[in-house]
């Protein structure tokens, strides 16, 4: 087991308490209404969690990588949709912190840290998902501005974001831009009725002659995907992997409780060996995923280039694991696993998206294998 520092243990306790008191009680309502409770967002802001990844000099809490992982694990345990807010907001902050100009960092990061602005990551398009480079959104340089035209879809937290990091082709090269919500020509259309993570408040963006100042380009022309996007997605992948561990833990916690309470054939359900098999598999696979996340976290904290592939591995394993674990949880609960009276059906629905976002499982299988083959002597 990875040994947490005293500071990390204290933060873990803080996160658990916060989630138990504030997040978990609202998860069902968030899911039913397909909206994150506003008072919950305010509380997250008050705790500084939106600034968890932002340096202190920009008013963030500057948690270490393991603590960020634990924060996302606990949020995932409470409510996957809420965890997705931390993920996408963090992706915008990471992009600016790493590749932004001094002026961009000084302007945007304190606002993001304090929750004065919510950020969202706008890469995907109706015809560009895994093949991100086939994006059709274009940026044209005109004087001291860029004009953006195009469409983005499936944008998490798009319904409430104040600023988007948008990827567009500038001179046929993928480039990243900051697009404030109030830019004329930007239309945000809510998307709902998803299978799971129903409160992740997805939106479709239509950009029609959106004029932004030149200062809103992040990094340089042509590095939008190779550097800005990939650094952000790397953070997204890590927090999603950790969120999967949390969601799976929630499944296990409730399953264990149920196995002790439910009596069939005059004994608790947990006495049945085939149920014990499921519990064992859930327990061990959750721990394995957690350790992969901690491994990635430690390497990230050390800025080790190996952290990239280890994060891919953690997300691949954790996203598959949470789908298996949530499926087992439904099975353990029987008919109750299908009822909205219990949280299990929401966990099962929330689990599914994790094999699709931040790189589908198939992309992971292709990339991890190709990397291994490339490195093999």
């Amino acid at each position, binding site marked *: 087991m990875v040994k947490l520092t005293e500071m990390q243990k204290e933060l873990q306790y803080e996160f658990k308490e916060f989630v138990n008191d504030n997040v978990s009680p609202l998860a069902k309502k968030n899911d039913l209404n397909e909206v994150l409770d506003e008072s919950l967002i305010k509380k997250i802001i008050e705790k500084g969690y939106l600034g968890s990844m932002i340096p202190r000099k920009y008013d963030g809490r500057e948690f270490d990588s393991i603590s960020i992982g634990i924060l996302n694990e606990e949020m995932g345990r409470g409510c996957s949709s809420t965890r997705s807010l931390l993920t996408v907001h963090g992706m915008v902050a990471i992009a600016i912190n790493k590749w932004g100009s001094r002026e961009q960092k000084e302007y945007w990061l304190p606002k993001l840290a304090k929750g004065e602005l919510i950020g969202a990551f706008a890469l995907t398009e109706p015809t560009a998902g895994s093949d991100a480079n086939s994006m059709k959104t274009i940026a044209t340089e005109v004087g001291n501005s860029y004009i953006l035209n195009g469409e983005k879809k499936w944008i998490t937290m798009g319904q409430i974001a104040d600023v988007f990091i948008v990827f567009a082709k500038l001179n046929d090269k993928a480039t990243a831009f900051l697009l404030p919500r109030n830019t004329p020509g930007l239309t945000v259309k809510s998307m709902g009725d998803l299978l799971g993570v129903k409160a992740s408040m997805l939106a479709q963006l239509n950009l029609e002659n959106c004029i932004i100042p030149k200062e809103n380009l992040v990094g340089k022309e042509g590095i939008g995907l190779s550097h800005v996007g990939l650094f952000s997605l790397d953070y997204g992948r890590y927090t999603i992997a950790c969120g999967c561990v949390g969601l799976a833990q929630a499944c296990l916690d409730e399953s264990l409780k149920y196995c002790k309470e439910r009596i069939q054939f005059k004994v608790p359900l947990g006495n049945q060996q085939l149920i014990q098999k499921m519990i064992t598999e859930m327990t061990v696979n959750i721990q394995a995923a957690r350790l992969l996340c901690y491994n990635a976290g430690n390497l990230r904290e*050390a800025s*080790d*280039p190996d952290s990239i592939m280890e994060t891919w591995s953690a997300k691949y394993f954790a996203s598959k694991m949470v789908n298996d674990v949530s499926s087992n949880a439904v099975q353990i609960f029987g008919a109750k696993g299908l009822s909205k009276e219990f949280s299990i059906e929401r966990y099962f629905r929330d689990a599914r998206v994790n094999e699709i976002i931040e790189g589908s499982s198939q992309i992971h299988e292709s990339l991890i294998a190709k990397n291994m083959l490339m490195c093999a002597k």
Partner: protein
Amino acid sequence: MRVKEKIKAFLAKHVNVNEIEDTDNIFEKGLVNSLFAMQLVMFIEKEFEVEIGNEDLDLVNFRTINSIENLIVRKKG
């Protein structure tokens, strides 16, 4: 270990360095994947304790072993 040797040691984890000349374009040869650009930035920053900023993000600085070495030497002053 000298700068070039460290660069080659890092590259050796990803490609067969015996197949690369110091002046070969690593990316154009198709030997590395889409994540390599990010891995290279992290390697340079960690190994040589320099910060790669926007001003450095020109492909010219990263495409050959020689150009990577030159970038690092410039950054280290």
